[in-house]
C-alpha cells in the first residue's frame, strides 16, 4: 500500500507539536485534521509509532555520543549530561496521559480513573505504570508514595541512591528492579519480576526476589511470602489478569480497577476462591462474559455486576 509521504511528514510535525505540554494551537490542528479524512489515522499511527519507538529505545543503552562538539549550528558549547535531571517538570510531557498540573511544590500527584492505565516516566529513565483507580505521589525521581490502587515500577537502579516507595507506614526499597504493588482492603501485595525489593529495610528487611510476592498487613506489620510466575507480575499492562486461589473480593476489586466496570461480590460468594485467567478488553464489551471464564455466577444489577451469587 502506497503511503502518502506528505501526509507522513505532516503527521510527524503535528505529533511533535501536540506532544509538547504547552502546545495551544488546537484550532490549526483541527483544521489540518479536517482537510483530509486520512489525516486523523495518520496522526494516530504516528503517535503510536513514536510511543512504541521511544519505549523500544528506552530499553537500549544511550551511546552517550560527543555530539556537543560537532556541527553545533548555533554555537552552543554547553555539555549537557543525560542525568541533568530537571526533576518534576519532566513528568509532565507524557502524551497519552491526562495529567494534573503540579501544585507548585516538589510533590506531584497522579491519579487514574477505574478502567484507565497511565505511564509516568520519572526523569532518570525509570517509569511507573498505574492501573485504574490508583493514586501515586511522586517526590523527585527517587521517592514516591502509593496511596491507593496498583502500579508497576520499572526502576533504574542506583546503589548510591536507591528508589524508595512508601505504602502506608511501610517502606519498600528497590535493589535493581521491576516490581508491582497492589493495595487491597486487607493487605498490600508486592510482586517482583526483575531484581529485588527490600521490604522495611529498617525493620524485618525481607528480601523479595523475582517470582515472589510478599503480602503485608499495614495495620499489624505482619507479612507472608508466596511464589508467582514472573510473567504474571504486572500482567494487567498487557490486558490480562490471572488469579490463583484468589478471594472473590480480590477478583472483583482487580476487575473493577482494570475495566472501569463495577464488580461486587454477592453475600453468598464471599468464601470462594478463584483460579483462572481473563483478557480485560472483551469484558468491557460484555461484563457478563466473566462467568464461564472463571466458573462463577455473574448477575447484572443496574450498573453493577454481582459475582458468585449461587
Amino acid at each position: 500500500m502506497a503511503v502518502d509521504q506528505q501526509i507522513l511528514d505532516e503527521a510527524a510535525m503535528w505529533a511533535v507539536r501536540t506532544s509538547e505540554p504547552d502546545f495551544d494551537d488546537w484550532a490549526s490542528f483541527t483544521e489540518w485534521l479536517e482537510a483530509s479524512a486520512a489525516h486523523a489515522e495518520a496522526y494516530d499511527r504516528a503517535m503510536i509509532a513514536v510511543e512504541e519507538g521511544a519505549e523500544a529505545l528506552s530499553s537500549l543503552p544511550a551511546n552517550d555520543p560527543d555530539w556537543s562538539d560537532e556541527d553545533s549550528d548555533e554555537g552552543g558549547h554547553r555539555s549537557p549530561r543525560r542525568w541533568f535531571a530537571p526533576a518534576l517538570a519532566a513528568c509532565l510531557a507524557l502524551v497519552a496521559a491526562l495529567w494534573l498540573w503540579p501544585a507548585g511544590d516538589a510533590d506531584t500527584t497522579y491519579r487514574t480513573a477505574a478502567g484507565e492505565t497511565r505511564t509516568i516516566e520519572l526523569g532518570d529513565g525509570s517509569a511507573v505504570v498505574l492501573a485504574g483507580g490508583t493514586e501515586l505521589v511522586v517526590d523527585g525521581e527517587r521517592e514516591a508514595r502509593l496511596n491507593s490502587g496498583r502500579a508497576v515500577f520499572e526502576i533504574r537502579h542506583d546503589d548510591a541512591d536507591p528508589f524508595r516507595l512508601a505504602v502506608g507506614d511501610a517502606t519498600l526499597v528497590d535493589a535493581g528492579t521491576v516490581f508491582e504493588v497492589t493495595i487491597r482492603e486487607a493487605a498490600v501485595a508486592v510482586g517482583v519480576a526483575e531484581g529485588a525489593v527490600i521490604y522495611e529495610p529498617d525493620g524485618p528487611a525481607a528480601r523479595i526476589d523475582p517470582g515472589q510476592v510478599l503480602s503485608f498487613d499495614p495495620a499489624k506489620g505482619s507479612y507472608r511470602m508466596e511464589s508467582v510466575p514472573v510473567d504474571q507480575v504486572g500482567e494487567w499492562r498487557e490486558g490480562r489478569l490471572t488469579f490463583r486461589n484468589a478471594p472473590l473480593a480480590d477478583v472483583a476489586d482487580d476487575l473493577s480497577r482494570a475495566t472501569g466496570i463495577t464488580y461486587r461480590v454477592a453475600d453468598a460468594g464471599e468464601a470462594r476462591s478463584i483460579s483462572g485467567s481473563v483478557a480485560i478488553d472483551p469484558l468491557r464489551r460484555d461484563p457478563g462474559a466473566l462467568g464461564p471464564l472463571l466458573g462463577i455466577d455473574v448477575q447484572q444489577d443496574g450498573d453493577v455486576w454481582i459475582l458468585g451469587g449461587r
Partner: protein
Amino acid sequence: MPDSGDSPDGLEAVFPANRDKLLRFLVARGAGEDAEDILQEVWLRISRVEAGPIAAPLAYLYRAANAAMIDRYRSAKQAEQRDAAWVEGHSGVAIGVSDSPSAERVVAGRQLAARVEEALAPLPPRAVAIFRRSRIDGIAQRVIAQEFGVSISTVESDLRQVYRVLIELRERLDEV
C-alpha cells in the same frame, strides 16, 4: 472537582462555552458519532480529579480529548493484534486461559528494539539524543534547547526527523 468553579476562566465555565469546538475537534479526530460520548467521558474523568487551578483550561480540555482518542486507537489496535495472535497460535487452548504469551511479547519487544536501533543509526546523534531527552526523559523542548545550546526550532526539526523515521519503520513493519 477542579478548584475552578467560581472563576469565569475556570474549567467549569470554559467547558460549556467551548463544547462545540471540542466536539468539532473530536469529529475531525475520527470519533464520528461517538464524539458526544467521548467528550462526556473526558469531562467526567476531569471532574473526578482534584486539581489546582489550571493555567490554560481550553488547551487542557483539548489535550484530554486528544489523549482519549489516542487511547481509543491504541486499545483497538491491541485488540486487533490479540485476535490475530489468537487465530495464528492458540487454537488448541481454552479460551481466556493464558498460554504464557508474555515470553513471546518479550521476544517481540527485543526485536522491535533492534529494528528501532537500526532505523535510527543513520540519523545525527544529536537528533537521537534530543529525542531521548524529549520522549524518554520527558523534558520540554524549551529546556532541551537550553541544554543542547540550540534553538527551539532546531529541537523541533530534530524531533520531526526522528519521528518520521519511527513512523516509516512502523509502516514497514505493518506491511509485512
